[in-house]
């Protein structure tokens, strides 16, 4: 097991009080496996990604639980151990590619910086010219056009799709065991998004990386992932193999999410809509977080949060599937 997150609780201190961003998240990832974290804004999907790389904002706190990545508990690592972990064990790509690279440095400088770090970690001498040619090779891997020219450009001279590919190439140069991508394609156009998705799919098998792919779009997740983890209100509501979840979603939230994708014309009937809006995590509902919007709500849902249950080869949190105590 490469990554094992257990009973993770993360809170943010805000002026309005304590916000419980993650409430007991369990997640495990095998080597070479791709898991998509799917959820709406405020569901905690980005917080989960950030807590794995120890990049929570200053007001964020790990209040409970553990994250074991490659045998080390991320939560309790020292500062220098965390720096060693980033880049070697884990690499993260963020949503807005334009904010990821330094705008006043050439692409080449920024790529060499990453290579210098890698060389230092491996206790190897670092040669700039070799570095550049290695980078150009990687740029070819990620299908960047004219890599020899492009590497000497500044970020503003590249398109969004190109920058995102540069960042992915930097990630590949570092050869991380776990690659976390937080909405890496949401700022891109559909055709460029498709190019990046296709690229990630082929790189996954080529480099045998594990990938955590964070997205709000369940169709994007379906293209890229082996397993889905659907997040709602800072909890994993359902986790399982993608085609199983898509064909027969069990959790009412997953069900509604899949049914709400428009498939037909309005003349053939209204869309299935989930009433209400996602919970405010400063004052979340009692019991199951989804109960105010759930069509199958029962009395127990209003007061007790459901535990993790196994059903039909997946794990979920819903009272509908909880076996009655024997």
């Amino acid at each position: 097991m490469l990554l094992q997150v257990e009973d993770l609780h993360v809170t943010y201190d805000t002026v309005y009080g304590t916000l419980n961003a993650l409430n007991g998240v369990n997640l495990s990832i095998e080597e070479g496996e791709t898991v998509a974290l799917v959820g709406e804004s405020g569901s905690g999907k980005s917080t989960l990604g950030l807590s794995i790389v120890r990049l929570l904002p200053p007001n964020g706190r790990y209040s409970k639980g553990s994250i074991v990545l490659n045998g080390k508990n991320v939560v309790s690592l020292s500062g220098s151990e965390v720096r060693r972990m980033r880049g070697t064990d884990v690499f993260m790509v963020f949503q807005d590619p334009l904010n990821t690279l330094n705008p006043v440095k050439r692409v080449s400088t920024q790529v060499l910086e990453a290579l210098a770090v890698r060389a230092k970690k491996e206790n190897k001498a670092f040669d700039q010219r070799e570095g550049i040619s290695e980078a150009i090779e990687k740029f070819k891997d990620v299908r960047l056009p004219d890599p020899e020219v492009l590497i000497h450009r500044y970020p503003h001279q590249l398109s969004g799709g190109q920058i995102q590919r540069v960042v992915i190439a930097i990630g590949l140069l570092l050869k991380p065991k776990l690659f976390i991508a937080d909405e890496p394609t949401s700022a891109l156009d559909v055709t460029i998004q498709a190019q990046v998705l296709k690229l990630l799919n082929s790189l996954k098998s080529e480099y045998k990386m594990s990938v955590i792919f964070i997205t709000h779009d369940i169709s994007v997740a379906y293209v890229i992932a082996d397993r889905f983890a659907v997040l709602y209100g800072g909890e994993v509501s359902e986790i399982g193999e993608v085609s199983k979840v898509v064909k027969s979603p069990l959790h009412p939230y997953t069900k509604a999410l899949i049914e709400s994708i428009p498939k037909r014309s309005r003349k053939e009937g209204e869309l299935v809509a989930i009433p209400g809006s996602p919970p405010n995590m400063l004052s979340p509902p009692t019991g199951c977080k989804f109960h105010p919007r759930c069509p199958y709500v029962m009395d127990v849902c209003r007061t007790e949060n459901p535990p993790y249950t196994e059903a039909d080869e997946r794990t979920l949190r819903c009272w509908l599937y909880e076996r009655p105590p024997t």
Partner: protein
Amino acid sequence: MKKGLLDSILRTKVPIIRAVEVPHLAIAGGEVLALVGESGSGKTTLGRLLVTLEKPTSGEIYFHGERVKGRRAVMGLRRKVQMVFQNPADSLDPRMSVKGIVTEPLTTKGLSRREREGQFESALSLVGLDSSTFAERRSRDLSGGQRQRVAVARAIISSPEFVVLDEPTSALDASVQSQVLNLLARIHDQLGFTYLFITHNIAIARYIADTVAVMYAGQIVEIGPAQQVLSKPKHPYTQALFSSVPSLDRKEVAPPTGEVPSLVNLPKGCRFNPRCPYAMEVCRTTDPPFFDVDGEQAACWLYK
């Protein structure tokens, strides 16, 4: 709406960006036309041109058969058109109450206070909000879905004939998006407005539209009945666009190679030719006109 200083400087000094070139586009009364395309394809600019937020460099716009030209005609048109913008957090004045925002389009109509109240109540009930609860709230007190409902209420209160909706649901969460789409469909069927629905989301176009127009690099490349265009796309760009869209029906995406050309430096001939798998000699030299194929129109030499 006034143009910002930077906008007017940029727009007047760089006229060489050929943002939109549409030889002909007609929208029938009561129709829902979806404009589909990627960013930079000109769909928003075309929408803004039609509600006179933007002035065409050349060309004419007719409303009910009459040319929209001169201040009086423009002002007359503006009373009959409305626009809903993508991000309701930006398009609603944070200092105004919901009531102030929604009733503002009525100011020019010279209505009494009671008439305004009445229209406010019916507009809010149409978008599914309780008028007494929301009247005095500000934009910051509302959720994303509620904000967009308020923006829709503002657009429909003056009973416009034509509403341009620019990506009205793309800033919303998936579970809220379908509520707003249902609402827009219901309002259309009840009040018989004409919609120009701008979206990059094919599934949404399929749900809402009667007619679909696909834009690429400032031009409409294909237009026809929604069912037809979406199930059997004719133009190679439309085909490439649709196979790029991730869907729960298949595990693969098949994107076209290359990127959208810069509008300052457009390729010669058909604008899609450098990325087109079927590119022929004629495509590299001459911009294709519209050809009729199976009840729709495609700007592609393949259908000559």
